[in-house]
C-alpha cells in the first residue's frame, strides 16, 4: 500500500516521477517553466481561480459529463457492469477542453496575450482555439502537413475560431514535429506567449499541470457512483497516446485497490514497424523535455509511430505513465487498428454512440477482455469515452474500403 500511496505525491520538486520526467529543454525555457510552475501552484490554491475554472467547466464546457450505464454493451460482453464516462459530450467533442480552459485561465492570469498549441488530430488545436476565442487571446496552432490532410475538418474549425494554423513540413509532418515547432516558437517568443501543451507530456510542470486539469474526470466518476449508491469500480480502462484522458481518469483512483488498464495503438501490430505502442515496445529516452518511454532506434533517433488514430500517433508518452508501468500500478497493453475500427462500429450499433478512434481502442480492449474471459459478471468497469467519432468517419471509411471483410454494414 505504501508503494501505491506514493503516487499521489508525485512529481517531486524536480518534476520527477521516479526516474521519469524532468526538464530537458533549452536554457531559454527554464525561466518560463519556473514562472509557469509558480503561477500554476498559486492559482490552484486561489479560491477565485478554482471557482472560475469550475464555472467554465460547467457552463461553457458542459460538465459534469454523464456516467452512462451501457447495458447494450453489457449484453454484448457477457455480464460485467459497464459505465462509459462520456467526455465525448463535452464542448468541442473531447476531454481536451478540460485542460485548455485551465491553461487558458492561467495564460490570462499571467497576462499573456498570445497562446500557441500543437495538435495531432486537431482536437487539442480546436479546444485551444475555442478557449482563445472565448478569452480574446491571439492563437497560433502548429499542425503537421500530413495531419492537416487527414483532418481537414478540424483545420477549418480552428480557422473559423480565429486561430492561425501553421503547417509543419519538417520530419514526419505529424504531431511530433508540430510539438518541436511549437517549442521553437515558445523559445523565440517566450516573453509574450503561453504554450498550451495538450497532453501529460513535455517538461515539468506540464505533466503534473495537465494531469491536475484532467483529473476532474476520475473525481466526477467517484462522486457519480457514490451519488447513485453504487459500489466503486474494480477496473478502469482508457486509451493512451500522450495519456491525458487516461491520467485524468486514473489520478483520483491511484490509491484505491482497483485495476487500471491503459490501451496503446498497436497499429498494424506491435511486432511490425507500424505502431504507436510506446510503453509496450519503446525504450527509455528523452524527447520534448521529458524522460519517458520512447519509440527510438539503436542510435537514439526517434522513430515514426503509426496508428489509425491521429491522437495516439505519438512516439513518446507521459512520464507518469512510464512510472506507473515501472511500478506495476497500471497495466499497459495495446489493440490494433482493425480492432479499434471494429469496436467503433460495434459500439455505434449496440449503444448508438460513435466513439473517436482513440476511445475505440479502450472499447476494443474491453471486447477483447470479455472474449478471453478476463472480465465477467462480478466486474464493474469504467471506460473513458474520451471523444466523439465524427472527425474520424473519413479515415474509417478509407480503412473499410481497404478491408471490406471488417465492414459491418
Amino acid at each position, binding site marked *: 500500500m505504501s508503494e501505491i500511496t506514493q503516487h499521489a505525491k508525485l512529481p517531486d520538486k524536480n518534476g520527477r516521477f521516479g526516474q521519469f520526467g524532468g526538464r530537458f529543454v*533549452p536554457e531559454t525555457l527554464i*525561466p518560463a517553466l519556473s514562472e509557469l510552475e509558480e503561477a500554476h501552484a498559486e492559482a490552484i490554491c486561489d479560491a477565485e481561480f478554482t471557482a472560475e475554472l469550475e464555472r467554465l467547466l460547467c457552463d461553457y464546457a458542459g460538465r459534469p459529463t454523464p456516467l452512462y450505464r451501457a447495458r447494450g454493451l453489457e449484453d454484448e460482453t457477457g455480464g460485467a457492469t459497464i459505465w462509459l464516462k462520456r467526455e465525448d459530450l463535452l464542448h468541442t467533442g473531447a476531454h481536451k477542453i478540460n485542460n485548455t480552459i485551465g491553461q487558458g485561465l492561467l495564460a490570462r492570469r499571467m497576462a499573456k496575450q498570445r497562446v500557441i498549441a500543437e495538435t495531432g488530430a486537431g482536437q487539442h488545436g480546436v479546444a485551444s482555439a475555442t478557449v482563445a476565442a472565448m478569452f480574446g487571446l491571439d492563437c497560433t496552432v502548429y499542425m503537421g502537413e500530413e495531419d492537416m490532410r487527414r483532418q481537414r475538418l478540424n483545420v477549418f474549425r480552428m480557422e473559423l475560431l480565429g486561430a492561425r494554423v501553421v503547417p509543419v513540413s*519538417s520530419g514526419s509532418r505529424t504531431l511530433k514535429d508540430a510539438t*518541436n515547432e511549437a517549442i*521553437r516558437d515558445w523559445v*523565440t*517568443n517566450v*516573453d509574450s506567449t503561453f504554450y498550451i501543451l495538450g497532453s501529460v507530456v513535455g517538461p515539468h510542470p506540464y505533466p503534473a499541470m495537465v494531469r491536475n486539469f484532467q483529473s476532474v474526470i476520475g473525481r466526477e466518476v467517484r462522486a457519480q457512483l457514490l451519488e447513485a449508491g453504487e459500489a466503486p469500480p474494480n477496473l478502469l480502462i482508457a486509451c493512451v497516446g500522450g495519456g491525458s484522458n487516461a491520467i485524468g481518469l486514473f489520478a483520483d483512483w491511484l490509491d484505491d485497490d482497483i485495476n487500471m488498464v491503459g490501451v496503446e495503438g498497436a497499429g498494424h501490430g506491435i511486432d511490425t514497424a507500424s505502431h504507436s505502442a510506446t510503453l509496450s515496445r519503446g525504450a527509455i529516452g528523452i524527447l520534448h523535455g521529458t524522460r519517458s518511454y520512447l519509440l527510438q532506434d539503436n542510435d537514439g533517433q526517434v522513430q515514426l509511430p503509426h496508428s489509425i488514430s491521429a491522437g495516439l500517433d505519438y512516439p513518446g508518452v507521459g512520464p507518469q505513465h512510464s512510472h506507473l508501468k515501472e511500478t506495476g500500478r497500471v497495466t499497459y497493453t495495446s489493440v490494433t487498428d482493425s480492432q479499434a475500427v471494429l469496436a467503433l462500429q460495434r459500439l455505434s450499433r449496440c449503444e448508438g454512440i460513435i466513439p473517436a478512434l482513440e476511445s475505440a481502442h479502450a472499447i476494443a480492449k474491453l471486447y477483447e477482455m470479455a472474449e478471453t474471459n478476463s472480465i465477467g459478471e462480478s466486474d464493474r468497469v469504467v471506460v473513458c469515452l474520451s471523444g466523439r467519432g465524427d472527425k474520424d468517419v473519413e479515415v474509417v471509411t478509407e480503412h473499410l474500403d481497404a478491408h471490406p471483410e471488417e465492414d459491418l454494414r
Partner: protein
Amino acid sequence: MKTSDRISSAFAAGREASQPLVVPFITAGYPTATSTVPIVTALAASGADMIEIGMPFSDPLADGPTIQHASEVALRNGMTVGKTLEAVREIRASGTDAALILMGYCNPVFAYGVDAFIKDATQVGVDGLIIADMPPDEAGEFLVSCRAVGLSLTFLVAPNAPDDRIRKVDGASTHFSYCVSVTGVTGARSAIESRTIEFLQRMRKLSTKPFVVGFGIKKPEHVMTLGPHADGVVVGSAIIDAIESVGGAGAVVVDAVNAVSTLVAPLCAAARQATMTAQRREA
C-alpha cells in the same frame, strides 16, 4: 595535448592577442557521409582554434530550419554518434590541434551510453561537449563524469535569465559558457539587437569563465559588433548556408571545403578588427 587543455590554450591565446575566437560549427555527416574530416581540417587551417561539431538528432528543437535541414541530411547519410567519434579520431590523426567541441542533444548520447560516450569521446580527442537540451539542473551524474576525466561541459546561458540563474549556469560550466544571443533558435536573425550587447555586458560582470556567444551570427559585421564583448563568436547556420550554395547534399566535397574556407577567412579578419574597436573603446 591533453583533453580540454586545448580549450584553455585557445582562450589564453585569444586573450593574449585581445582577439575573440571565431568558432565555426559543422554538422557531422553534412553534406556527405565523408565530408566531416576534410571540412573540419580546412576550418582549422583557416585559423579556427576551436570548432564545434554537431551530432545530428531527429528532433533538434533548439535549431532553426538551416541546421534542422543539415541534421536531416546527415541522418539520411547514416551519421551516428559512433561515426562522429570516428571522424574526430581521423581529424586528430591528420594532425589538427584545434579544440573540438561536440554539440548535440541528450537522446542520442544517452542511447550510446553516458559512460561509454564520455570514455570514447575523451579517447578519440574530443575536448568538450555542449548538450542543447541539458540544463545544469538535469546534468547530475553526466557533469560529474565529465569532470572526472577532464572533459569540458558547457551550458547555455540565456538572455532572459535573471542574474542568479546566470551565475548558477555559468558556475556549472567546467571551462567556458555559451551565451545564446537572443531568445530563439539557431540561425534566426538579421541584425544585432542592442539588448544582446547589454546581455553580454551583464554576463561579463557575472561570469567567472571565458564565454562564447552564438545563434544568428553570420557576417563579419556581426563578429565586429559582438566580438569585443565575448571571448568567442560561434558561426553555425552561415556555414551550412555556404555549403547549401554550392549544392548542399549534392555538393562535391572540395567545393564544400572551399565554401567554408572562403566564409571563415573574413570572419577571422573581422575578429582581429573587433579587438581594435574594443581597445579604442576602452582607451
